[in-house]
């Protein structure tokens, strides 16, 4: 079984390399009319500040986490108790935000179907850095209950960089709070550079995404 997996692995790696080589970032799939609306720049890795300034910035970031209001899967159902008086995440400076532009944390709520992955990628790219991703539920780790489904992906970290996983099906609100605390700690330690990881390995991520999203009708990078 492991042999077969290895073989498939190399095969898909080759495929990724091929897609990456073919890929150009000039939004070539778009019509001329649409091209004008989108930028064709690649994401750039941004150097952090140095010394105490970055420490201070990270502290401020960790104290004000704004979740993108996008319930991508069934995990979103436990976000609602988390927001309300039983668990009250506002106490920790965590609050939901309706637009990706203003939010800094993306909670992947469990399984992600291919159709949703496309929206996840788009929303993730629209968020302004530094941005953090929380993988919620076992489905984001290895597919969970739906490991053999033809429409849900198995590993979300092949498509966007993930900072913290919270396992379980479903993870309890307490587990979510623990995950958020872990994320805060990691931010303060300066270990959450997922945005730079994404920029540096952009070709790899993009090739992975293109391998499953068959009708790619959006710009290659949505800022």
């Amino acid at each position, binding site marked *: 079984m492991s042999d077969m997996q290895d073989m498939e692995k190399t095969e898909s790696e080759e495929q990724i390399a091929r897609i990456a080589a073919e890929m150009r970032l000039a939004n070539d799939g778009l019509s001329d009319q649409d091209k004008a609306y989108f930028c064709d720049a690649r994401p750039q890795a941004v150097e952090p500040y140095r010394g105490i300034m970055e420490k201070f910035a990270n502290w401020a970031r960790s104290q004000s986490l704004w979740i993108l209001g996008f319930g991508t*899967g069934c995990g979103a*159902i436990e976000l609602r108790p988390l927001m309300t008086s*039983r668990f009250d995440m506002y106490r920790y400076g965590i609050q939901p935000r309706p637009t990706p532009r203003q939010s800094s944390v993306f909670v992947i709520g469990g399984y992600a*179907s291919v159709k*949703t992955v496309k929206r996840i990628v788009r929303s993730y790219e629209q968020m302004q850095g530094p941005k953090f991703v929380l993988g919620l539920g076992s489905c984001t780790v290895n597919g969970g*209950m739906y490991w053999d489904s033809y429409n849900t992906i198995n590993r979300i970290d092949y498509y966007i960089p993930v900072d913290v996983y919270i396992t379980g*099906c479903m993870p309890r609100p307490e587990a979510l709070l623990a995950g958020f605390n872990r994320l805060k700690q990691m931010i303060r330690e300066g270990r959450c550079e997922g945005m730079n990881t994404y920029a540096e390995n952009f070709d790899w991520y993009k090739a992975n995404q293109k391998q499953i999203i068959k009708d790619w009708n959006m710009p290659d990078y949505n800022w």
Partner: protein
Amino acid sequence: MVDVKQNSQRSKFPPVDAVTGKSRYNLLSGKYLKIWQGPQHPGITGNMSLELTVCGDEVIECKTHVGYLHRGFEKLMERRKYIQCFPLVCRICVPEPDFNEYLFAAGAEELAGIEVPEKALWYRTLTLEMARLASFLMWIGGQAGAFGMATIGQWTVTMRDYVLDLFEELSGGRIYHMYIIPGGVRSDLPAGYARRVEDTLVMIEKVLKDIDLAMMHNAVFKKRAVGLGVITPGMVDEYGITGPNARGSGIRRDIRKDLPYLVYDQLDFDIITEEGGDAYARTRVRMRETAQSIDLIRQMLRKMPAEGPFFRKLPNVLHWKVPTGQTYVQAECTRGEYGFFMVSDGTELPRRIYVRGPSYTHAVTLMERLAVHVNIADTAGLMVSLHTYPPEIER
């Protein structure tokens, strides 16, 4: 206010070309604006999206897009044994997974000819009603939130959390209980459970009274909800509308009464209907059904048999071959008629399991019809008032 006549004269389909299915509105004319509500949007129920064409503030065309949550349950169940399906089915519907568990169990039992002990029937009914209570509490908060009243949502979701605590005590799981299994239920009620249920019910009743005052008698809420998304009685059969959406239009339909399952024929309750068919009538139906659900739970705790087995031993479930046959079992969930169509071909694996979710018609065809000529600010409220839930559409 309620322009029923005008509503019924509208065309059956949203104004799309019958042949190509494309929109008749030319977006390049500059008169119309196309906006997407969802999937990334706080005003949408779950993960789905509405493609709205608006002219000014008025929606003139609506198209529902689903499939963001498609996991291929029906395909997955075809390659799992019956007992392996059982942890999978509850994940079809998150707010009230117990209906999936019950229907799967009932279908399998009917095909295999298994009798369930009397006590298990009571336990099943109890969990179903508790799930209904939890789901309705969440819905009330959602409907208030869709009109901008966050306070109600905070109250009810907390109350729902206390119901989830009861579930946790019963089955060990907050969201997915996996309590109802083929052959009965998984465990007996813990000691003193009835008293804790009663405590929670008292608490919920108090909050419901507050909500009735703050929401149902609120002038602004009435202004928003009355006359929004009118379902005429004639539309009910045409669009396959079931559940509170139909009862809000004065149609007396409730599977609990029409085709009594479990122990509903031993319980004392009435079908709740309201006149009007608008979002306000639907809200009233659901508010009253929440109270009814509390009453039913009390009745059950009173009438429930104390002694007896709660589980009938199955044959070795790993080799459990269900005889050839097909059946359709249905139950009244919070949104309407929930059903499982199960086909067995005599092997260890089910041949086909089809899940009939009420949102299938409510969220797609009905929503596309009702959203036309609605103010764009009301689409979220309209959507919530139909109580749609996307995973049961695409499964």
